[in-house]
């Protein structure tokens, strides 16, 4: 699978495993959640109000476009959250979410 992002520098870092929609991926130490996901794929989440996908927009915590779900419940802002080993991330609302 090809992601949206290209690493231009800082590639000599240790790797961190994480799960996205149940599949195992690897990011690098110091990656944000946004960077790690977009290295693996071209979007972060489905839009709630339109047919398109969303991938973040401002990367500085202002636009709130990059909030994604986790299997464990709370959502997180992907651009300002550091990737942590074992994170279980989702691109869509969990199946048991009533308002989906």
């Amino acid at each position, binding site marked *: 699978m090809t992601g949206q992002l290209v690493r231009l*520098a800082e590639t000599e870092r240790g790797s961190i495993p994480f799960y996205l929609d149940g599949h195992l991926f690897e990011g690098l130490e110091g990656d944000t959640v946004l*960077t790690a996901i977009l290295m693996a794929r071209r979007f972060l989440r489905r839009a709630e109000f339109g047919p398109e996908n969303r*991938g973040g927009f401002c*990367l500085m915590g*202002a636009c*709130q476009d990059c909030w994604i779900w986790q299997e464990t419940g709370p959502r997180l802002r992907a651009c300002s959250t550091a990737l942590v080993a074992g994170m279980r991330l989702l691109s869509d609302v969990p199946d048991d979410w009533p308002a989906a």
Partner: protein
Amino acid sequence: MTRVLIVGAGPAGIRAAETLVEAGLHPIIVDEGARAGGQIYRRPPENFRRSSKVLYGSEAGKADALHDCFERMLSQGSLSYHPNASILGLGAGQAQFLRAGKVDSLAYDKVILATGATDRMAPVPGWQNAGVYSLGATQIALKAQGVALGRRMVLAGSGPLLTLVAAQLIKAGANVEAVLDTAPLQKQAAGFVGMAMARPVVAIRGLLLRAQLGRRYHAGVRLDQIEASDTGPTAVHWRDAAGRARISACDMVGMGWHLKAETQLADLVGVPFDWDDTSAQWLQRTDAFGRGADGVYLAGDGMRILGSDGAELAGKLAATACLTDMGLAAPEAKVVLKNISRMQRFAKAVHRSFPWPAQMVRDLPDDTVLCRCENISAGALRATIDQSGPEMNRAKSLGRVGMGRCQGRYCQLAGAEVIAAQIGGQPSQVGRLRGQPPVRPVPIEAYVDPNP
């Protein structure tokens, strides 16, 4: 001791803190970033290895000086520092903030707001798709994560950041297909004279960066559409200065039209606003030192878009005013005031060179997404005005433009332009979106214990 709260640890916040510390105070500094520095001098995570020369180019010396200044104050225990913390609301001497998923509050006597700026954004049909980013985002990704946001990048908009980001990406080895500037060359040339007179070195540095873009760069363009497939952008459709239709293939678009001050917190503490014709946005009314209200001081791009050098000066001035109002000895401000007025002359010329694309926004097709948060179209806003009248806050209540989770940061100016066009007037005539706390989204469990 008087408790002085500083919001933001960029160039303005850090220099404000330094001035207060030198006067013997112990400021409290709250910042959204993981490491102090702000956006333009943003620092990557600690395990990254690129030198500051690589990260900040010609500004490396200034960046190092600023970071060192902050680290020195921190290691000497001269200030209280709360990183990764977002102020949600301010008032009555209390600041509420979100940190590590919990809401907390702290008391203050005086506050210096150094909140910075976001990209000033004009919608382009298709901009809601994944793979379309702000220019600021494009630079942050490169600087703080070492990544390019796409394999074939098209950068569009206008302002100093457009040329700077494009040149930085090319230097770092990214593939920049086209740089599309909506500012016509003759406007840029007219503004350049003013820029060169106020800050000759900076103006010439800008020209040299521009030269590095070569044939990728086009001035006086009009953006028609970002074409996208299921997986993201595939092309930007645009018209050149002669009106010819052009297409640039891409898988990423970075866009922005200079900057928009981040003003929500000042609004909450009662600072008055005026429409600023020069920068085409609402700005706080302050005196020359940044006094905005009783015990409220402003500094940096959150007050007025002067860039990082101007922000450092404004930070010193705000702290100087704060000290003076406390009856404490304050540093002499004459030279700083003189230097900042040079920055203001430069900024004015920059705004003249790279204007807000008012007509392009007024001409947006009805089906263009205007509000990215909730996909409200330009046509829906136009239809709302029949019921709400031509006023931003009422149009927001009825039509939801500005109601989404960015709270109007990215749609407010375009919305005002669309409404103004309907009445044959100017954005200054249709009102200003009032700031509402919390100024950042807060998860409900930050307020309540999920396992009581």
